[in-house]
């Protein structure tokens, strides 16, 4: 069966696998700098996957999409994050809530769930990249897991952005991307969101002297 898959599909699958791998790496990575690096790499892989899809299908808006990803996920957001990390002087994350091997195990379980859920859908897809839908879902879930387990505000945000990567991968793999206007809107939202978050980090540090989200557990009912 493998032989029948065209090269472009094999490439996209490869990049998807890389994205998944990077998601795992981010789950395990504790140093903030490296985390941002990994995020940028993930963005790059996504960009390349979109590009391959664009080349192989010849759809114009996928080129735009790839370009947008490059601009936003590979250049703009990592740059903003680097600046934040430097200005806020964040070195590494504190010990995660659960130890890393356990998280990894949970992550693997999630990947299995995601594949299982996506399987019936993938079979319906006519695109060359249908197998990657499961990977995309897995990336979303891993990002989710990362957000749950991290304790620094900034790493939560990286997790959030990684989740967006997973969503874009899904969009690309399942349907060759969303309509242009939607993708632009999404990109704008992400960018604005990031800027607002940047402002936010400073406010949080001013108020709490730290970006540790454990300081933000005052509002509760119990």
């Amino acid at each position, binding site marked *: 069966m493998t032989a029948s898959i065209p090269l472009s599909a094999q490439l996209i699958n490869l990049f998807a696998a890389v994205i998944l791998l990077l998601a795992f790496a981010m789950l395990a990575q504790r140093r903030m700098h490296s985390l941002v690096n990994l995020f940028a790499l993930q963005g790059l892989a996504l960009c390349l996957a979109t590009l391959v899809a664009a080349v192989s299908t010849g759809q114009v808006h996928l080129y735009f999409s790839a370009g947008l990803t490059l601009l936003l996920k590979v250049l703009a957001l990592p740059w903003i994050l680097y600046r934040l990390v430097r200005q806020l002087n964040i070195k590494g994350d504190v010990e995660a809530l659960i130890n890393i091997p356990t998280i990894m195990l949970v992550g693997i379980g999630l990947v299995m769930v995601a594949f299982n859920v996506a399987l019936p859908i993938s079979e319906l897809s006519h695109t060359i990249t249908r197998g990657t839908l499961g990977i995309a879902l897995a990336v979303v879930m891993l990002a989710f897991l990362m957000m749950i387990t991290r304790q620094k505000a900034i790493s939560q945000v990286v997790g959030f952005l990684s989740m967006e990567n997973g969503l874009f991968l899904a969009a690309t793999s*399942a349907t*060759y991307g*969303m309509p242009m*206007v939607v993708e632009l*809107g999404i990109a704008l939202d992400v960018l604005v969101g990031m800027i607002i978050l940047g402002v*936010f980090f400073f406010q949080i540090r001013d108020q709490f002297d730290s970006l540790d989200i454990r300081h933000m557990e005052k509002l509760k009912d119990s």
Partner: protein
Amino acid sequence: MDFFILMLSIPLVSGALLTIVGERDWAPNLNVIASLGTFLAAVGLTGEIVANGPRFAVGEQFFIDSLNVFFVALTAFVGLTTSIFSGPYMRIERDRGRLTKPRLRLYKSMYQLFMFTMLAALTTNNLGILWVAMEAATLTTVLLVSLYRSPASLEAAWKYFILCGVGIAQALFGTVLLYFAAERVLGAAGNALLWTHLVDVKSQLEPTIMALSFIFLLVGYGTKVGLAPLHNWLPDAHAEGPTPVSAVLSGLLLNVALYAILRCKVLADGALPEGYAGNLMIGFGLFTLLLAAFFLSRQKDVKRMFAYSSIEHMGLITFAFGMGGPIANFAGLLHMTMHSLTKSAIFFAVGHATQKTETQLMEHIRGLMKINPLIGWGLMLGTLAILGMPPFGVFASEFMILTHAMKHFPWTTPILLLALGVAFASIFSKVQPMVFGETEAKRLPHAPAITPVFLHLGIVLMLGLYIPPYLTRWFHEAARMLG
């Protein structure tokens, strides 16, 4: 001039304008005037739709039918009254030193932008743009929630941002899946996310994908609606933001998010076996209702308590839409309207009450009737209205929901009874001593903006006793559209 374009451009332009001119003495008036303009445009649009039927705008990207025009009118109206209320309220906040001029500028511009995003979300025909607008609504309100820059408000805003961001990301996944399903029927042309097109082919959509898509959409937008257990951001954001923001969050944002779910439900119903989407919504609705009722009994902060009350009502509305059918849908729509009007009125009254007593802790608020009878009566009547006491309109919808549930889903009624009973006891036992009783607090010199409170309550009262025929027709049409 096209009312639709006018309605969307007024808040956008005035938002920009308010950012540019900064905080001047007349800025609050500009805010009100802009809201009034939006409201008038919305009224004009409504009249147009009622007279001529549904229409498109900007190609097919926007679509206004009897379902959303009703939300548009409601949103514009509550937006107007809230802007009227926020004038005196924010002035008092500034005098108390809680807010500075730049923040007031931020408040007003963000307020207008928020109105823009919500109106856009309501009127768009494109489910992708709907998502974008919902996300934008979150972004604009995050800054409003953290307006006081206190630790608590920052924490609330952070939670709001992250939880809603994550939630909405799932909605995006759902949208992608929906697009995926639609593309198989409608082709890769750009109209595969247009709701009008989707509705035409809804029965041909692939059930497996639609089920998955609806789950993601429900969880995603449900986070914004405040469905338990995805509701955790809601009480924090409501309690820590300025009161006008609480009023619009509760009165409008939740509605818009629920509206998004409703649009998706119509599609899911077409593609999926009978009752699938409905049962999910019934489950969420009941769970939310019950949980919120018990949360209510432990509240100390007045705004937080009413935030939980919003969760409770959202649960009830979700339950109503989950039951489906003309009566329940009608009741759901009516309840959304009533809840918006009543809850924002309550928040107005609560806002003044907290300003006068300088605390949000209920045990320290006493004798409002003595401090200012209008505020006292406003809060008391508002509370009774929200608790479903006739002759207020909330009762009309609860009446239909409960009787319909008894007839068609009798097993749910014990849960409804329990939840409504607990909610009643919890809220009323706290509000009553706040309103009644003795107090040492003196009357404050500020004149409260009490008109919006009684305007809202007056409408709610009227709708409880008499729903004008055109409104009825409109509701019916919308209810029919929901299936």
